[in-house]
């Protein structure tokens, strides 16, 4: 027999628990819900939008009757539960139903608090809490009268705005000197007030309502400053009180709210409570985000799953008024022990304040520009030390390292940044859901992740993520990698993975290419995928499928000459090596020698015929190819480190040489650069490399997926390790994961933007997977660490570099047979 679960309250938190529970376990309970209001479950938050006429009631319904039916949930709407008998385990409803339960969930929300005011019992003195209130407001307000809203908090402002949108003169009365004082400091409050005044709201600050008068209905409102106004409606938004009477009557322990433990259990074994009606650890909450967090814990508990207890929430809020961007979180006021970073532009209406304590963000106020809200919130929640970001942080994430992400906020968001504050949904959750569950529309995403399903202020962001993630698929025409095929990289990789191929042409046949030979786009890609799959020992790299640099092992320049770069391990050389290079350069009359950005010597202006003899001479002096042309490891750049530098904490030169010896050789989807700095001063610029290693006192920081190209991208921190062995293991694992997972010609920076940091962390921070990738790297290096120059000479390839010279004067003109 199924257990019987009875829910009191058909509101936002109670029903969310049921939704979460059904996801985990849909056959464990017989569920019955009692709701005081005569409706199915609707989104209370959206009442503000109904009032401002931006949404209809239909838009706000979360679960229709059909949902209750499909899930065999009995809904008693418009029926209030009047008592709980915990000894008999029954409840009694107003209509007289007596229902027994095995488990009971109290989710009765809260009641509006209306301060005792003469005349507050008149008709049309109401709160702003439920659908009925909104109906009353809309049917009462009158353009010839003034509406009065009491309370300058979120709810009061939204009420005033909603009413003002009907063209009704609205006065907002607020007890203190600055509106939204629970969320905003005075500067922010002032800017917001100015903005709202432009909608026709009149503010009366430091004022209260002294008296409301009228016969049966509101006629006049008198304020504490002695002034009065003719009015026909007063809306109180002056706070809420947890709705705990039922629980108190039943003998459950309660203080401000119904007391619950970390698993939302009340003082009775079988009775749980969630939402605004509860008090957890001394706190009550009036926003959905924490309530949903509580709900998640409770759902798992009810499903009988392992779960960590609820431990309280960091609150953040947004104001749902069109055209007003406002965000605040944490301790936004600060005190004498805190510092403030402030950016204020009154004219444009932008205000940003970060409250800092001990180099960490503890409070955020954003007004007018909330694009970086989730980033700041993440820094706050993760207690990130922001010393290094201080000077730029207020300009937002895009200002860091001039990363060229400007305006494209979805792309610059990392996976663990929160998109939907109400439901605690991060970007990564949305991206994964779209990929894993094959979601195609905004509604799918809302339904599946709940992102955007509550207060709705993040919906634009969610949609951008959807478009970005689906990319081509969004308009339903998957794009091929070139004109030869309709298939994209993912599909081609899969075909290669699943089959067995000797050469690129077999892949073309299998995958039904439209051309026989492919082209300069697809052939190098397929050749790369085969190399990455089989390594150099089981697959012959097809030089004719490589572009010029990768084929000729040198970089072609615009005049058709080449540049030659010998490998200089870790950027460290010797007088002898320099002398050898100089001698060779003199011998071949190299016109230009340049130090490269990657600390190598680049000899320019070498002709194709000179390549082989020059390589031979370099080989003879002990040099191998620096692979400055390769889609593979280019250079490991190092700073001087603790060998000489007074700041150095680690031997960056030694580490750099070792890493270069470890990683040179095998092909990667695109060029790959590493740098090692000996301390966080980062002289080797490790944070714009594909893989950056930075020595710190306690070991090494490993950074990934930076790029110093057209679009600068600063690395993401992968992790911190203590030993050199760990550095090697991560270096190998990350490079191999990139080799096998990324698309051809996709730099690590683009790869990470596509798959997300979390995806990479999942494999890199998991020991078993990391070891797997590192071992595969070792395997691939075995056949790859062969000097391409020496090999090209040895196997005769360089013969074709020579020109065939014909002197028409000396040679005989020749009449072939048949002509």
């Amino acid at each position: 027999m199924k257990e019987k679960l009875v829910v009191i309250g058909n509101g936002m938190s109670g029903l969310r628990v049921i939704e979460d529970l059904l996801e985990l376990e849909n056959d464990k309970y017989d569920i019955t819900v009692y709701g005081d209001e005569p409706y199915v479950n609707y989104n209370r938050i959206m009442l503000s939008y109904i009032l401002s006429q931006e949404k209809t009631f239909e838009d706000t319904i979360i679960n229709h009757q059909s949902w209750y039916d499909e899930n065999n949930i009995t809904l008693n709407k418009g029926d209030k539960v009047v008592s709980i008998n915990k000894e008999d385990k029954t409840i009694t409803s107003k209509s007289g139903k007596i229902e027994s339960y095995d488990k009971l969930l109290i989710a009765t929300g809260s009641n509006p608090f209306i301060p005792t005011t003469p005349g507050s019992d008149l008709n049309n003195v109401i709160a702003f809490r439920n659908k009925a209130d909104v109906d009353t407001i809309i049917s009462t307000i009158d353009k010839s009268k003034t509406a009065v809203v009491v309370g300058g908090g979120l709810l009061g402002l939204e009420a005033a705005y909603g009413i003002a949108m009907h063209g009704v003169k609205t006065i907002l009365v607020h007890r203190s000197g600055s509106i939204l004082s629970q969320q905003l400091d005075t500067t922010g409050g002032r800017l917001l007030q100015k903005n709202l005044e432009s909608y026709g709201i009149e503010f009366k600050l430091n004022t209260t309502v002294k008296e409301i008068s009228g016969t049966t209905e509101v006629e006049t409102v008198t304020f504490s400053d002695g002034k009065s106004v003719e009015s026909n409606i007063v809306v109180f938004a002056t706070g809420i009180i947890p709705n705990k009477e039922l629980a108190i009557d039943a003998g459950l322990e309660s203080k401000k709210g119904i007391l619950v433990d970390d698993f939302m259990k009340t003082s009775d074994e079988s009775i749980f409570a969630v939402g605004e009606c509860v008090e957890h650890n001394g706190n009550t909450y009036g926003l959905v985000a924490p309530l949903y967090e509580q709900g998640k814990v409770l759902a798992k508990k009810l499903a009988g799953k392992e779960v960590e207890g609820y431990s309280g929430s960091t609150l953040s809020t947004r104001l749902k008024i069109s055209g007003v961007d406002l965000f605040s979180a944490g301790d936004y006021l600060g005190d004498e022990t805190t510092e403030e970073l402030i950016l204020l532009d009154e004219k444009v209406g932008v205000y940003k304040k970060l409250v800092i304590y001990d180099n960490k963000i503890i409070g955020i106020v954003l007004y007018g520009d909330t694009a970086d809200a989730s980033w700041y919130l993440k820094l706050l929640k993760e207690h990130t030390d922001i010393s290094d970001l201080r000077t730029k942080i207020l300009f937002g994430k895009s200002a860091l390292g001039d990363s060229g992400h400007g305006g494209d906020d979805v792309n610059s968001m990392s996976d663990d940044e929160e998109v939907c504050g109400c439901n605690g949904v991060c970007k990564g959750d949305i991206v994964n859901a779209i990929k894993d569950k094959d979601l195609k529309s905004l509604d799918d995403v809302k339904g599946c992740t709940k992102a955007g399903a509550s207060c709705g202020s993040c919906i634009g962001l969610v949609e951008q993520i959807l478009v970005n993630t689906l990319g081509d698929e969004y308009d339903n025409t998957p794009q091929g990698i070139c004109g030869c095929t309709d298939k994209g990289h993912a599909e081609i990789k899969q075909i290669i993975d699943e089959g067995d191929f000797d050469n690129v042409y077999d892949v073309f046949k299998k995958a039904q290419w439209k051309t026989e030979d492919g082209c300069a786009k697809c052939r190098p890609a397929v050749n790369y995928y085969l190399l990455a799959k089989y390594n150099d020992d089981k697959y012959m790299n097809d030089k004719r499928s490589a572009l010029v640099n990768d084929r000729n092992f040198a970089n072609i320049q615009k005049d058709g000459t080449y540049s030659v770069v010998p490998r200089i391990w870790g950027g460290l050389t010797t007088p002898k090596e320099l002398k050898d290079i100089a001698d060779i350069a003199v011998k071949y009359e190299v016109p230009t020698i340049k130090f490269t950005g990657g600390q190598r010597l680049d000899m320019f202006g070498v002709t194709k015929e000179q390549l082989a003899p020059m390589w031979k001479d370099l080989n003879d002096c002990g040099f191998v190819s620096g692979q400055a042309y390769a889609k593979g490891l280019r250079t490991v750049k190092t700073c001087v480190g603790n060998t000489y530098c007074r700041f150095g904490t680690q031997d960056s030169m030694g580490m750099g040489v070792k890493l270069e010896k470890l990683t040179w050789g095998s092909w990667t989807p695109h060029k790959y650069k590493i740098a090692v700095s000996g301390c966080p001063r980062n002289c080797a610029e490790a944070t714009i490399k594909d893989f950056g290693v930075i020595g710190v006192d306690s070991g090494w920081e490993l950074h990934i997926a930076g790029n110093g190209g057209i679009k600068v991208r600063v690395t993401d921190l992968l992790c911190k390790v203590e030993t050199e062995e760990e550095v090697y293991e991560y270096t190998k694992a990350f490079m191999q994961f990139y080799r096998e997972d990324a698309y051809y010609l996709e730099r690590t920076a683009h790869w990470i933007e596509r798959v997300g940091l979390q995806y990479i962390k999942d494999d890199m921070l998991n020991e078993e997977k990391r070891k797997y990738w590192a071992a595969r790297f070792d395997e691939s290096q075995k056949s790859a660490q062969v000097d391409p120059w020496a090999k090209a000479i040895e196997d005769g390839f360089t013969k074709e570099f020579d020109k065939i010279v014909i002197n028409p004067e000396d040679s005989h003109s020749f009449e072939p047979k048949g002509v």
Partner: protein
Amino acid sequence: MAWYKITEVESIPSMGSRIVKIGEIEIAIFKTKDGSIFAINNICPHKQGKLSEGLVHENVVTCPLHNWDVDLASGEALGNDSGCTNVYESKIEDGLVYLNFITK
């Protein structure tokens, strides 16, 4: 116009090329996958890239500098690009490659 003997067919790599220098002219001789030989002025109609270093597919070479596709038979740039470079008559006889060009 006269035919000149250039080299053995085998010394031109399949789907690759060799550069032939005749006086001041540089000609790229290509061998396509099916073994056909093409001779073309080694200058891309776009910005003088060395076509000899391009990737060969069917009867087309993709210039190594900016990826123009140039038809080996006609010397014309393909697709949306326009431009043309000289081509030369060639033939294979007894395993040898011959080129027909004007000497001055």
